[in-house]
């Protein structure tokens, strides 16, 4: 099926020429009146204009959030859960529209947004609606007359800065726990993808009390600090790269507020010999597991971008994977047959191309791909790159640096110990994959890898209820699990004495 591009006649997505910020439940023009053009990476042509905000707009959003925070924070968990469930229902009711919007702005194939991004976004709101209803705090009986009551209280107003790779899903990951815990949010979308979240605001804006959700678009260099360093936020959450992560921590240190960070990765995907012990569904699943590096055109922090294959199966396993990669259909992201779309921006395309050149220069062998993809026609100007595999060794830059594109670095290992050594020889520790029919080995290797999530005989699943976050320089905090509620709450302890006798000190 082929969806009509947003804004064209018969499209299920309407497009206004220009989008303002969403602040206090209303659409507000940026104070200085500046807008900038927002492109689709599929054709490099404009979709619409979005606000090009300044710090004054961040202050307006913070005003609105602060005006809303007391009432929202005192709303009962049942009522907040009802609102979050209504948000989930609205996302589901508009799933196709949101999926097409997300695909057109980001470039990701609509088969992914229909099956993953949008249903998952709805489910994360439902998960946190359930979690906050079921939340119980503790009472400690210190002694017969002295009782410690623990209450969870919202932080107030939080700043949230989200990335371009899953604009709606990452917004859901951050908003659902923050709102469930009773906070109000000022959210800054990534500069390359400012629009889909505004389409979401059209759908869910009326369901939330004004000021609970505020969205301000603009360049990070202009408004990023105004939000992250603002003394009026009680917490900051960020997904992105390491330098901005450090800068945000530095601002948070100056205001003494907590921070959660989800940063980069260079995730190993390990295939042990026994995956080829039989020619069955499991082998087929493992082959697909390797090809998942091309999911979302490789623009995933947990992209399984290093494949480690046991030496004795490499010659048989790799051709199966390369045959599967050769069948990847690249093209219009709005065609449900398309498996890989364009990179999100010209910058990303440039970065991917230059990394493949670095790989060639340092002696990596190009097994497939290695060039810009020529799609032609309407998509001739799109930012397409061929799914690529480079063979080399783990000390090469293409094995150490996050490319954030459809580029797999593949190497071999001799035994389990070497697999673990190579897997951990990285600065990052976000994700990993282990493929084996041996349960004992899967457990041992999974525990030995220093990463926050080890997919075992699967990859790229992101269910609510499974904690997600990084070891090493990959970040701080765990999302997509009810433990995130702790990151968005204060603990209030009431220490109550029911006794009547004085202490006797004075």
């Amino acid at each position, binding site marked *: 099926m082929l969806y009509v591009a947003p804004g064209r006649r018969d499209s299920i997505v309407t497009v206004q020429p220009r989008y303002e910020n969403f602040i206090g439940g209303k659409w507000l023009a940026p104070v200085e009146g500046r807008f900038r053009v927002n492109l689709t990476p599929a054709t490099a042509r404009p979709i619409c204009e979005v606000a090009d905000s300044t710090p004054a707009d961040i202050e307006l959003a913070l005003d609105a959030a602060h005006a809303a925070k007391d009432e929202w924070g005192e709303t009962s968990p049942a009522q907040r859960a009802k609102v979050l469930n209504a948000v989930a229902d609205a996302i589901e009711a508009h799933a196709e529209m949101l999926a097409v919007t997300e695909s057109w702005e980001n470039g990701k194939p609509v088969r992914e947004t229909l099956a993953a991004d949008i249903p998952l976004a709805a489910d994360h709101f439902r998960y946190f609606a359930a979690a906050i209803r079921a939340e119980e705090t503790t009472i400690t009986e210190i002694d017969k007359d002295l009782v410690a009551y623990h209450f969870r209280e919202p932080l107030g107003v939080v700043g949230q800065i989200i990335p371009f790779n899953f604009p709606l899903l990452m917004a859901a990951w951050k908003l659902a726990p923050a709102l469930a815990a009773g906070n109000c949010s000022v959210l800054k979308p990534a500069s390359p993808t400012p629009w889909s979240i505004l389409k979401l605001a059209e759908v869910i804006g009326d369901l939330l009390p004004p000021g609970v959700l505020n969205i301000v678009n603009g360049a*990070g260099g202009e408004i990023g600090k105004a939000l992250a360093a603002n003394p009026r936020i009680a917490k900051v959450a960020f997904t992105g790269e390491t330098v901005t992560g450090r800068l945000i921590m*530095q601002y948070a240190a100056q205001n003494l507020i907590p921070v959660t960070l989800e940063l980069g990765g260079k995730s190993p995907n390990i295939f042990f010999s026994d995956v080829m012990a039989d020619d069955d569904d499991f082998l087929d699943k493992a082959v697909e597991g390797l090809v998942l590096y091309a999911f979302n055109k490789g623009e995933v922090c947990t992209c399984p971008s290093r494949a480690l294959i046991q030496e004795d199966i490499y010659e048989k396993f790799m051709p199966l994977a390369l045959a599967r990669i050769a069948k990847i259909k690249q093209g219009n992201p709005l065609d449900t047959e398309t498996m890989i779309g364009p990179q999100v921006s010209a910058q990303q395309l440039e970065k991917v191309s230059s990394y493949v050149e670095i790989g060639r220069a340092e002696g990596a062998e190009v097994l497939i791909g290695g060039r810009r993809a020529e799609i032609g026609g309407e998509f001739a100007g799109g930012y397409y790159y061929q799914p690529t595999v480079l063979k080399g060794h783990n000390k090469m830059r293409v094995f150490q640096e996050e490319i954030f594109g459809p580029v797999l670095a593949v190497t071999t290992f001799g035994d389990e110990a070497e697999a673990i050594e190579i897997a951990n020889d990285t600065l990052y520790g976000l994700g990993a994959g282990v493929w084996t029919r041996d349960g004992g080995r899967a457990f041992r290797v999974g525990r030995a890898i220093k990463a926050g999530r080890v997919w075992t005989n699967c990859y790229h699943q992101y269910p609510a209820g499974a904690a997600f976050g990084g070891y090493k320089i990959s970040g701080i905090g765990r999302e997509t699990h009810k433990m995130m509620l702790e990151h968005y709450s204060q603990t209030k302890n009431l220490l109550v004495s029911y006794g009547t006798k004085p202490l006797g000190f004075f």
Partner: protein
Amino acid sequence: MPERDQAPARDPARAGKPGKAPTRDPGGKPARISATPAAREAIRRLRAARGEDLMFVQSAGCCAGSVPMCFPAGEFITGDADTLLGMVEGCPFYIDARICQSWDHPHLVLDIAPGNPEGFSLGPGGGLHFVTRMFRL
């Protein structure tokens, strides 16, 4: 051909503090930065427009990674774990020492390319952003 600044790298973040300027990374190899004439011109323009000194920090990982981030001088607090690659047009250029090592002590060339800056980085304007390339003779 990229030009290299003449002055020996003296880490401005350590001015007045004891200890030697880190002109070498922990691996002991000389680490270097140079810049294209276009990047130099962009820095001069940006500095004049903002009326303040600038600094660069090489980023890595995730969405906006692998690009140099440009900030007002002193905005990004550097520490012992950062390596000063050198100076460009009077602006210090830093890289995380671990990343420097994992990239095998690169010689980077600062340049500009189409596309807006990402993260919290300043850009030269005109829809351009700073990039680093590997030095090749």
